[in-house]
């Protein structure tokens, strides 16, 4: 299948990247504002990857390579006229917790996720990409450093700063004892899993 995809077979390529589609879409969504733009950017990125797949030598993993291509495509899209027009139409909402709906009003997990996504999208891009790739997609520091093209220590510090900023934003609303939507044993399970 790999050779077929490199020979230019679109179906083989799609089969090859199918396990990474959701990750790429989430990653692109973290760099955009809505799922529609994210899907457009992801499609453009995957077409670029299909064109450039004959040059893929397999030194990095396929997921890492796809993230790199997706990041470049996202940057290009935001620089293009289309991206600028979309930004004008849908300006980024303020992600300050004061402007977000109160957790008291939104009691379901979906709203909590949306608030967190908005907070992530409000971060600086240099902190956002490592945070999403590490915390959400589960990549290692080395892989993120390869995607970003910076040292591993830089990635660590950026992730730490991003977490600190998110903690500061949610400190007043999500006290440790008052996690909404969580079961009483959930916190203990998290603590056990992250040691």
């Amino acid at each position, binding site marked *: 299948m790999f050779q077929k995809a490199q020979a230019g077979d679109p*179906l083989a390529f*799609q089969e090859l990247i199918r396990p990474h589609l959701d990750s790429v879409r989430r990653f692109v969504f973290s760099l955009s504002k809505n799922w529609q733009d994210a899907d457009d950017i992801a*499609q453009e990125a995957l077409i670029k990857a299909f064109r450039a797949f004959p040059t893929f030598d397999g030194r990095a993993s396929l997921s890492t390579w796809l993230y790199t291509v997706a990041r470049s495509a996202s940057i290009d899209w935001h620089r293009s006229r289309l991206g600028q027009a979309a930004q004008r139409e849908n300006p980024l909402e303020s992600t300050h917790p004061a402007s977000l709906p109160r957790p008291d009003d939104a009691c379901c997990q979906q709203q909590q996720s949306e608030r967190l996504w908005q907070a992530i999208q409000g971060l600086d891009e240099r902190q956002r990409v490592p*945070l999403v790739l590490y915390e959400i997609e589960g990549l290692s520091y080395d892989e993120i450093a390869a995607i970003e093209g910076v040292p591993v220590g830089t990635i660590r510090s950026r992730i730490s700063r991003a977490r600190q900023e998110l*903690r500061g934003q949610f400190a007043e609303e999500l006290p440790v004892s008052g996690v909404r939507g969580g079961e009483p044993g959930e916190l203990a399970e998290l603590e056990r899993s992250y040691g």
Partner: protein
Amino acid sequence: MNDLLLTGQLRALRQPPPDNGFEARLQLALVSEAQALRAPNVVVPFRSARRLQRWGARIGLGTALALGASAAAAAAGGIWAFVASQAEPVVSPSAAPVLEQGGTRRAQRTAPVVSSPEPTPPEQPVLAEPEAAPLPELSPPTVTPAGGVEHKAIRAAAPGRAERLPARQTRPQPEGLVPFELPRPAGAVSAVPGASAARPSTPAAGRGTPASAAERRALPQLPARAEQQPGRPERAERDKKEKDKKEPPGREIARERSLDKADRGLERAKEARERNNNKK
């Protein structure tokens, strides 16, 4: 919010994105992209056109550069020729500068040159009066055995020049004083009025510059202005005498005969005129 809770919340975001037909659209887009990539390559004529354009641009640029360079060279040559023609004065024989009185290098070039075995140092002008120096002149033409006419340059006779030198140099020195003249340093300006100060004197070393006035006196002199200046009867008489002395007798006889012929012709013409008048 502590780190664990934040981490849990972030991990909870790892949910499958909404399925809005993304895979189907992606498949269509990939197939159309593959068809576009497999399309017949029609770039070749375009490439050849690009190549032609490139070579045409190169040739055009080279031609333009060559033409521009030649035009610039022609313009520079024309300007140089114009400037040179404007700067070059018309040299008349009477206005030819004399080397003894100091002149510019151009004057040295335009002045009649007399071949001499020793180079005349231009930086050491001889302080001589214009009419005093016996000047070189051309000898009367002599007929060579082959039938040609030859002119020989006669250098001015060195003896006797000392008497015609200015009094400043010929003045007898008081007893006890040794006449001594320091060699003129390089760059010194001639003492003769009218000498061009712009003409730098070359270093004396290697040019055979005489150190004393006597040596300078002994040097051959170039033709002076006195020869070319009109209105000097003594000079003309002397020249005539010298010519008469050196003219061969045969030539003198021939000249007398020709003069006689001319006189006779004049007399005949007179007589004819008188006859005509008488007839009238």
